[in-house]
């Protein structure tokens, strides 16, 4: 479904991705793990078109998407929950969801999905008319996820969805991911610091280190890998 090969991305002179190649197959949950500054966020940004790779090729369902503007990529069915949530601060919760459904034109469908989002995160319903910017960190995270689901994406890019969420919600989030994947067949590329849980729900995983893929394989295998356990899972 998604295929990156030899992608190089830069921030000014900082060479953030040094030839990343990875594949995400239809219906999979793929975890991308790695330490701080490894380039996980950059990878997702490159895929969704927030950043342009300097070299390398990138295809989604066979069509090349490298260098295409973000709004076109999104219209192909890729949704991105960005790092830092990036809620529209001066819009209410409902308006945020509405904008999330910009490419959907059917009012009834939009309303349906909003209700669905409220179902996932009841707190959002309570705060339907609160400004996004005044929501607490965790509440914003919920909103960001619900917003990305408004278009019923075929590929969902999640950048640390559990960040800032309370333990109860961390579990809920992972449940939702699994549910989406199982019931709707949504493909997920998941970046997580909470690698333990990520590897539990993922089918496959990649380990990124200073801009390069260091390891890839079955999630279960990766979870057992000695170096991974030491470096990312906090095992002594």
């Amino acid at each position, binding site marked *: 479904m998604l295929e990156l090969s030899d992608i190089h991305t830069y921030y000014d002179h900082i060479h953030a991705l040094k030839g990343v190649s990875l594949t995400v197959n239809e219906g999979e949950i793929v975890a991308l793990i790695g330490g701080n500054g490894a380039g996980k966020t950059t990878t997702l940004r490159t895929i*969704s*078109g*927030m950043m342009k790779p300097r070299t390398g090729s990138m295809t989604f369902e066979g069509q090349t998407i490298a260098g295409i*503007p*973000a*709004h076109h990529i*999104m*219209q192909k069915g890729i*949704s*991105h929950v*960005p790092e830092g949530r*990036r809620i*529209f*601060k*001066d*819009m209410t919760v409902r*308006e945020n969801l*509405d*904008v*999330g459904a*910009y*490419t959907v*034109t059917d009012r009834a469908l939009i309303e349906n999905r909003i209700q669905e989002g409220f179902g996932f995160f009841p707190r959002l319903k309570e705060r339907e008319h609160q*400004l996004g*910017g*005044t*929501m*607490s960190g965790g509440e914003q995270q919920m909103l960001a996820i619900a*917003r990305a689901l408004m*278009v019923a994406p075929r590929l969902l890019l999640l950048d640390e969805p559990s960040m800032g969420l309370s333990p109860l919600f961390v579990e809920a989030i992972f449940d939702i991911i699994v549910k989406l994947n199982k019931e709707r067949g949504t493909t997920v590329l998941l970046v997580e610091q909470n690698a333990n849980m990520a590897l539990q729900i993922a089918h496959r995983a990649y380990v990124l280190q200073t801009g390069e893929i260091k390891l890839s394989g079955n999630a279960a295998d990766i979870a057992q890998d000695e170096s991974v356990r030491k470096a990312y899972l906090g095992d002594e």
Partner: protein
Amino acid sequence: MELSTLLPFLANVIVGGLVLGFVYAIIALGYTMVYGVLQLINFAHSEVFITGAVVGFEVFRVLAPVNMNGYLKLLIALLAAMIISGLLNVVIERLAYRPLRNAPKLVPLITAIGVSLILQDVLRVIEGFQGRFDLTYTLPAGFAAKFCAVGSSCESLGNFLRQIGVDVQLKDVILVVVALVSLGVLNYLVNRTRLGKAIRAVAQDRVTAGLMGIDANRMISATFLIGGALGGISGVLFGMKFGTVNAYSGFDPGIIAFTAAVLGGIGSIPGAVLGGLTLGVIQNLIGVMNVFGGALGIANLEAIDASYQRIGAFIVLVLILIFKPTGLLGKSNVEKV
């Protein structure tokens, strides 16, 4: 002085201020739209709007000998001005602001000033080739007449106005109507349509808007188109109301209109309108302070004459902003830390 003369006087001053306020309001909307999406004080808007005035002038001039309904002429003038000012604004954005999207905020401010200077001379040269500097509108017959004059079909309304001492011309009424209609349309566009929502999303976070499938550049162009079209309308209204414009006459009303936008809460559409009306009325009231000073026998008030009109408005602005730091209708934009 008696109340019976002072009251109609006051009514006139306020009505005059309101009409003026509507002109400011529509100019202010052009600033506010652009500010809302790029946080840029579009200094070139004063020339975009004067371009509208020039277009209006040309339309009326060319159509003057044509025997045609005056309202139709006005409509043509408005449409032409909207199109030309709108497109001009889009082109300005494309050439002078878009390449600087990622530069510090003040950089496009300077190019805006540059564009403003360029346009001033360009307009002057264009009209100069025809030997014109001050452009005086030739309005359709009757526009300058009293509204609902004695003998007209709406005489009774006119009588009522005359009774309370309010003295308006047909063109003032037209102006207010056109302004209100434009406001209504704009409000619908921004608050009720997908386009409006997308523009607001782009205004807050271009990148994330892109992730939502919104083409930020198109939305920004659309905003400039709308803002420019409003500028075109305001230009024609301005020319129609005051009769004469030249290439340089956008600066002053531009500054005041931007002030109005700020007073109302910059970025807010109802705010711009409220700000425009407030400034219009306050300006006029300050302009007649000396009359009240005379009537009440307060010497210090008497010294405040029309030369204080403009700074009076600024002082009111200062006072209002001290108590409402984000303007009359500005969101209090509480930042969550």
